[in-house]
Structures are given as structure tokens and as C-alpha cells.
């Protein structure tokens, strides 16, 4: 059975476009070992000095390290600073509504 392919995937495939031009697509940028930028997030679920978990469209992005701090948070962007050891994407099954 063919998997459901949404409209954005069709357009990116036909138009040779990047995913990040579409809204609601989570983007994670890692700058060296001290800064992580997460765009298009759905909020934070866990905030600690060693772990910060951020909910995104297809799961969670967990940042692990030392002396982690939320430096900036807005509706679409989130910046985590500190000594970053690991950035983990925990996906979940995509529903038909996605």
C-alpha cells in the first residue's frame, strides 16, 4: 500500500524545492557545541540544566548537555545555549491528519 504523500512533498519533489520554505516545518540548526536554534516548534516539554525537550511536528527534539539555558523563545523560534553534547530527534508515527 502506498503511503500517503502530502501536498508539500509533491511540490518539493516536482519543483525541486527545499522543505524549509514551507511553514510549520521544524528546522534545527546547530552552531558549534554551544548553540541550537529550533524553528517552528510547538513548545517545550522539559526544561532542565542537562536536558531540554522541545515538541515539534513529528516528535520531540531533545538537547542534552551541561549548563543548558533557554536564551530566547518566541512563537516560532527557540534558542538553546550551553555545552551541548547531544541533539536527539525522537519521531512518532505520522497520522493521516499530518
Amino acid at each position: 500500500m502506498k503511503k500517503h504523500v502530502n501536498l508539500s512533498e509533491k511540490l518539493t519533489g516536482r519543483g525541486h524545492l527545499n522543505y524549509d520554505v514551507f511553514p510549520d516545518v521544524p528546522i534545527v540548526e546547530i552552531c558549534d557545541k554551544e548553540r541550537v536554534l529550533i524553528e517552528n516548534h510547538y513548545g517545550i516539554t522539559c526544561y532542565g540544566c542537562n536536558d531540554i525537550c522541545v515538541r515539534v511536528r513529528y516528535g520531540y527534539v531533545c538537547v542534552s548537555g551541561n549548563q543548558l539555558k533557554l536564551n530566547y523563545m518566541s512563537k516560532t523560534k527557540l534558542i538553546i545555549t550551553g555545552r551541548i553534547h547531544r541533539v536527539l530527534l525522537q519521531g512518532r508515527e505520522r497520522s493521516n491528519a499530518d
Partner: protein
Amino acid sequence: MLINRYISICFTAADPETVLTRLAKEGIELAEITWVDSLTLKIRIKNKQYSNLHRILDTMGIHTRVIQKQGILWVLHGIYTRPVFLAGMLLFLVLGFLLSDRILLVEVKGCEKISEKVIIQQAEKNGMRLGDKTSELRSEDIKNKLLEKLPELQWVGVTISGCKVTIHVRERSTTEKDMININGVSSVVASQDGVITEMTVYQGNPLFQVGDTVNAGEVLISGYTDCGFKLIAQQAQGEVFAYTQRKYSIVVPAVAIKRSSENKEHICYRLHIGKKVINFCNHSGIPDSTCVKMYSEYYWSLPDGTQLPVCLTKIKTINYDTVPIKESEETKGWLMEYAREYLYTQMIAGRIMNESVIWYADNDIYELKGSYACHEMIGQEKYEEIVEEDAKDN
């Protein structure tokens, strides 16, 4: 960040992460999110979003506390709410603009023998006064006038730095008279009438010998020596001792007034600003003989030591009660002691061989007449002026 206004606030919630997510969804930009304790977060937001945040947290039943306000606009707002401080700042700026080109301080450097006050007074008489514009100051004119009025000065320089005028001076190392004395001719003359007992000539031509009687003013050792074919001019040096006789008379009143006990004291203050004097006393301050006046000056100076022309003067006047006292027989003793001490100050060197005193006491006065036989040095150096034609060799 310096221009915008930011506020740092704290809030406590059971689930702070959910609160942060809710605030972010409502469009509030959060920065510097740090933990205060396990349930309290500190965040920084823009001032214009504070009302929205307060409303959202109120609906969630969360209390906020403002910790810090940042940004230059907060500082300006604080200054605006302090009118006296604002007025003082404006006054300072206006005075700084108006007084920046005026003479406010005068300093003298390099003077040792001459008083700084004398130099400053002369400079003020010749066109340099406090409050004048620095652009109108003619330093060359002031320098020339100072050199003309104060011959003790060898060199004068006037420099201007902002509101401060510095007068650099260099004094002459020797006066013109001393220059003549170093190169001139001198003789040893007698300062008193007497009979010469000792005569030691180091340089010069002795005109008297031991046993001779001399009068005051006579030349004892001449600086000129006639060698027949030439005349030697030099500075005569020598020591001449002689027997002399001196007579003194001392008169004191029989009844004197003495201060007994303090009556009352009075303190008044004066403020000197340049040459202007503000008197806080209600009287002229001229005491009579029964008062003791103590005068104290307190000059204001800058941290670097520069003295400002502002002085606070404290005048303490103490009135005494007086009692008349009659001189007693002890007066004779201290008058004789006083006469001897005075005599020694009049001698160049020597001692008193014998004294004969007559004591006269009356209702009004006490008089002591003394005659003293002394053995003292009477040789005194006297410089002579050299005239060019006399110095030519024949």
C-alpha cells in the same frame, strides 16, 4: 538593548514549561529564561509586552514580580521624575558652557622667596583678573609688567589651560647689590667708639694698631693697599676687638594693666571669593586692647591640590577682664636682665665686663639707667662703590 526598555520578572508555577509555551504562543518574546528555584523562573521581556503577559498570567492565576528594569529610556524616565536633579544638571551644563572660557584658577609655580600673593596681585593690577575671558588675556603684556614691577624675577611665563592660568617664574639667584659686593672693594670700619685690644688682619691694609683709640665710622682695615707703583683694591677682612662703653635707659610705667579672666568669646565667619568678602558678622571686628583675636583661614582646594580662590575665615574674639597691677621691686631685676639681653643683640660678638645701674622709682614710672663696659668686636664690613676712572692704572 540600550535603547529599548526591558523588564525582568519572576513568576512561580506548578508547571513552568507549560506557562512558557503558552506565553510564546501568545506572541510574547521571552529572553534569558533562567531558573530561580525548582518552580520559579526569571525571564526578560520588552516593556510593551508586559501588560499582555500580566493579563495572561492573571488568567492562569500566577503572580508576577518585577525585578529589574533595563534600558536607557528607563534611566531617562527616572531622571525626568526628579526635577531638582534635572534642574541641577541643566544649570551645570549652562555654567560649563558659559564659564569654560573664563579665568577661574590662578597658580604660581617656581617662586621661593617671593610670595605667591604678591605675584598674583601684580598680575591682577596688570590685566589678569578672575572672571576675565581667557581669549582676551595678553600673556606677553603681563609677563613684561611682572618683570618690570618685580625686579627679583629673572624670567616669567604665562600659560593658559582651560580655566586655569599658570604663572611660571624664575627668581634671580643673587641681587644686583650682591653682584656688586662679590666683585667690589670693602673695608673694615669701627661700629663703636673704643680702645683696640686685639687686631687680626686676614686681608687688607690695617690703619690702626692695638692700643689705639678709634671713633665709630673710622676705617680700621682698608681695602686699598698702595704698593708705590700700583694700588691694590681688595675686600678687607679681619677681626678687631676693643673696649667700649654703652649706656642705656629703660622706662616702664609703675601701674600696668593685666588680663585676668576670660569674659566671653565671640566667633564670626567671613567668606572670601577672590577679592570679594562676604561678612557674616554684625560688627566691624576691630577689637580693643582687652580682646584677643584669633584668625584662622581655610582654603578650598581641588583633589589634585590646586587651591581655589575661595577661603572661609574664622575669627574668634575673646574678651578679658582687666585688673591694674602695680610693679614691684622685682621689676628692677627683670629690667636689668632685659637690658643685658638687649645689649648682647646689639653686639657683633663680645661680653659685658662691668655694669653700673641707677634705679629710679616714682609713683608713675620706674627708670633704669645703665652704663656697661664691654669687650666686643667692633669691626664691620663696608663695601665701596667702584668708579671707573679711579680704577685706571696711572
